[in-house]
């Protein structure tokens, strides 16, 4: 019976972790492996937080549109650092900054405040990649955007499925 981990309607296979431990060839779980396990579970948690975010323009989730995936999440738990790299559906996606804002807001609301979060578009996937990245990581612009009721309404709508 494969081990599974459930959060709400999502259930995650822990096969990778089991295989990892089996390959060690030892019955004992060493402390360093525990760290790996915790890291793995934590990156799953982050994916769990963002996978159901609805695309601003489509009735699909970011995961269904392959805007985010497991590979999109980089974690350095020791330094309280998370980076999400998302892939806009098209190169000229005008909603890239809104998607980035949704990702940032979701993590702001889900992660402990000590975490530093960087959000970026995958290299080479957006026509104005540098400009989008700069805007998404300027916290003053993010703060100002989050005081704009229309934008907040749009973000909340996209985030709604993640709270179901």
């Amino acid at each position: 019976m494969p081990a599974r981990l459930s959060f709400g309607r999502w259930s995650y296979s822990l096969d990778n972790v089991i295989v990892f431990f089996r390959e060690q060839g030892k019955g004992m779980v060493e402390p360093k492996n525990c760290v790996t396990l915790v890291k793995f579970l934590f990156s799953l948690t982050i994916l769990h937080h963002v996978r159901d975010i609805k695309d601003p323009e489509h009735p699909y989730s970011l995961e269904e549109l392959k805007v985010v995936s497991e590979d999109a999440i980089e974690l350095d738990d020791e330094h309280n650092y998370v980076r999400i790299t998302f892939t806009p559906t098209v190169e000229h996606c005008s909603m890239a900054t809104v998607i980035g804002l949704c990702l940032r807001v979701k993590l702001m609301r889900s992660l402990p405040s000590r975490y530093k979060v960087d959000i970026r578009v995958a290299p080479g996937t957006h026509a104005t990649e540098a400009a989008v990245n700069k805007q998404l990581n300027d916290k003053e612009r993010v703060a100002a955007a989050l005081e704009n009721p229309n934008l907040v309404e749009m973000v909340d709508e996209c985030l709604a499925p993640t709270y179901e």
Partner: protein
Amino acid sequence: MENEGTVGLDCNFELKEVQKLEGHTDRVWGLAWNPVTGLAGVPSVLASCSGDKTVRIWQQAAATGSWECKAVLDETHTRTVRSCAWSPSGKMLATASFDATTAIWENVGDDFECVATLEGHENEVKSVCWNSSGSLLATCGRDKSVWIWEVQPGHEFECVSVLQGHTQDVKMVLWHPSIDLLVSVSYDNTIKIWAEDGESDDWHCVQTLGDSFSGHSSTVWAVSFNSTGDKMVTCSDDLTLKIWDTSLDLTASGSDSSGLWRHLCTLSGYHDRTIFSVHWSRDGVIASGAGDDTIRLFKEIPSDVVNGPSYNMICKKEKVHSMDVNSVQWHPKVPTILASASDDGYIKIWELKAIS
């Protein structure tokens, strides 16, 4: 020249926490010390502004030395208050807000009364600053412009110039400590120097410190002058601090601003997240506060004839707050006292001490 983070570490000072000021309910963006307080029995006064849309006035109690919130300036700004600045007399406080206005507050007894509201910017105002004589006010914001206002009798403020030139939002404006020279720093990665044209009374950009001047490679967040005004320091999202100096004759009246500024050195390899704030103390110590929750202090080391001046880090204090440090400000009269403000909603007062 480059100063690498691993070279010449000489951390022989420490920052000791004096007090944590609690009150704001959202991130604290800015701090301003009242310039006429803190000496000769006048208790020190500090203003702070926040994402909670308020400004708080903190005063040090004479008897205990501890800091207390004396006033909360609310119900005027409808959005984040991004920046605050005292007039040189310490009687007026200007506050710049994302609500597109700048408010002017007058200190009457223990109270603060909003006596004027400056409107004109299209959207978020990000910084405000009084010139050294208190006759001019500068503001800047997301609309890429810098406005200069003349202070007139009866709490009237007349806009005398709207300066266009930056290609992106302007993060901060700062007047020179003795002459009417204005510096602005921007999301467009540049630093601009503005001066009044003696003949036409009009303001114009006299220099842009960008790529060709060894400028910053990302957003410039803040700028500070040394006490004499012949050097300035800028900090950036490119994780560096840059020191600039000028050949300007600062004593000449009707200053010829063509002396201009040049890059002196870059301090890199220290902070590992965006540097949001930098402030030069009266004693020559540069404090920087960053998104890595760290405050670092630098001091010029005796000039080397061959390489020119360089700057050593004399103190590094990690985890000063549990989140980003947005502002560091030295006390204007007691140069061993430093205040810091953070996304964690707190303000901290620090004392600089030599390690014996």
